[in-house]
């Protein structure tokens, strides 16, 4: 008999003790064990969090866009005002000459 066969022989599956399945089922039916399930209220809360989270992100994004546009407008106005002052100064210089 080869060494590997001897190993397989020694490690043959054994039958579980009598009444093993009943013991497991008694533990389950005795309400000691419950299947893992996500409660409905937890699922509803998770859905609500996702919807509210999405809406909040959308609002924040909108506000950022607005602030960005405002900043661009202010920069444009500042540049225009500077240009206007320079032109005015130039006209005054010509008229006083």
């Amino acid at each position, binding site marked *: *008999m080869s*060494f*590997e066969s*001897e*190993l*397989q*022989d*020694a*490690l*043959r*599956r*054994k*039958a*579980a*003790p*009598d009444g*093993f*399945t009943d*013991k*497991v*089922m008694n*533990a*389950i*039916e005795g309400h*000691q*064990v*419950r*299947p*893992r*399930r996500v409660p409905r209220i937890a699922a509803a809360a998770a859905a609500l969090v996702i919807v509210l989270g999405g809406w909040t992100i959308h609002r924040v994004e909108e506000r950022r866009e607005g602030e960005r546009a405002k900043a661009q407008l202010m920069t444009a106005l500042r540049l225009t005002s500077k240009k206007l002052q320079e032109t005015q100064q130039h006209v005054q210089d010509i008229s006083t000459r």
Partner: protein
Amino acid sequence: MTAIAAEMDTADLTLERAQRGDHDAFAKLVRQHESMVFSVGYHFFNSADKASEVAQDVFLQLYRSLQDITDPVHLTNWLRRVASRRCIDALRRSRFRMVSLDDAGDLPVAARTTDPFLARRMSEHIAALPEAQRMLVILRYQEELGPNDISEIVGMPVNTVKSQLHRALRVLRKKLETR
């Protein structure tokens, strides 16, 4: 339809029924796999009592996690993985005292061994291996799995599985040669 395909269909149906809360179907799953799960523990601990305790915990965990099981093949591999982890964890937690085979109690054996004395000696040598190597030998020769499957079950690189198995077999061979 072949016999194997028909058997797979039946196994699928049993699993589905158990997942829908059918206790008879779950009991059928336990009966189908109890020998495999119990034997992993029995060969690991050398104790029928400890093996029975660990096997019961494995099936209770299965009941809780039944919705995660996708098919009968997944179920078998899940049970092998959880059984092997539970054995190693239980041993580490309690540093369970090994009992000799004389104390292990008589068990109904699924199939008669050709040389009970030799098998007994071999079991003693296996039980003396370090825990990780012991589990690899059990998965290789009880469950007849290859290094790739064992690697997935125990979460160890394939090359480590091969080298550890090689080392364990060398030790066992040496011990048997001195008989």
